[in-house]
């Protein structure tokens, strides 16, 4: 865990990626915790009955993981806004890669705009989004 100040970051910085094997148990644990224990998030058969290839992770779980990437990068970054588009269902039991980059630094309110996304081993971007984070200043 590190603390980064507004002065420490630059436009173009990549956020440290998280490479994760997303297990079905992890998805079930999230679904249970988040009050979303529905078939499509808990078992393959239930998901297939809804026309899905297999069980999927809730979109908000991907969003939560991307928020965690920001918090792993800088524990002092306060998320003011986070928006994600769930372009494709996130299928567990395989690797997912959480990535991000600082795209804009806004001096006026010491915030930074970040791109955030989740991709699979083939580089398909299943979830894309942006976040606005407020950072502490040294001044």
């Amino acid at each position, binding site marked *: 865990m590190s603390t980064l100040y507004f002065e420490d970051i630059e*436009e*173009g910085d990549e956020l440290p990626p998280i*490479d*994760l*094997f997303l*297990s079905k*148990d*992890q998805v079930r*644990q999230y679904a249970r915790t988040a009050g979303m224990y529905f078939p499509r998030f808990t078992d393959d058969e239930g998901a297939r009955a809804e026309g899905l290839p297999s069980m999927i992770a809730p979109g908000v779980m991907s969003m939560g993981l991307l928020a965690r990437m920001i918090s792993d990068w800088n524990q002092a970054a306060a998320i003011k806004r986070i*928006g994600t*588009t769930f372009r*494709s269902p996130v299928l567990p039991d395989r*690797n997912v*890669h959480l990535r991000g*980059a600082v*795209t*804009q630094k806004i001096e006026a309110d010491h915030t930074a*705009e970040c*791109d955030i*996304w989740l991709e699979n*081993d*083939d*580089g*398909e*971007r299943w979830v*894309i989004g*942006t976040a606005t984070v407020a950072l502490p200043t040294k001044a």
Partner: protein
Amino acid sequence: MAHILDLHLHSEASDDSRAPVEAYLKWLARKRDERPLEGLVLTEHRQFNKAGDYRDLEDKYGLLILKASEVETDYGHMLVYGVNDDIIGRFDFKNVRLSAQEVITEVARLGGIAMPCHPGRPTIGLIEHYQKKPPLEGVVGVEALNGGSKKGENERVAGLVQAYGYHAFGGSDSHLVSFVGLCATAFDRDIKTVEDLVDALRAGGYRPLDFRVQRPQPPIAPEVPTHGSGI
């Protein structure tokens, strides 16, 4: 002067992007070694951003910025270059069921060019429609390399291009700042205006360029969830 352009990207004028045009330009300026682009074509969803004026940004960053549209038809999505008042008056860009044949034919007659994008994509790509319906007349080229594609979607286009003799171009389809220019198009001729672009797209003499970097993906051990700490 511009020979290498990203022909497909969305700015904050589109409903599903928050990327300011200037942030795209700054990103390209920063990444010039990896993505040597000289221009961008903004293809906003279901609209033509007539009010958008990027001349000051062009001067500031030394990059060409042109405006176009991405529309939705009964043969999938199409990029419309050279949009003018006649074209805007002829079609309701918000209609998600435009007739593809009408778009191709009428846009060409009115001075622009409409080109199918991501043809390998299910439902909104040309290939699936060609399997069920007769081919369109007057298609000049297709987006053979799209930065938002899933595995196999770009690969599928090679056969289409060969079978119909279409020209091939590329675009990033970027909705995020950092994806700008990952796929682009190289032109033999210099593009200075949207009229140049339309002429060049009609004439041929261009090809897709891929600037994506494939990262090696190491094997990963599952994370073991812990049930909270501190209690």
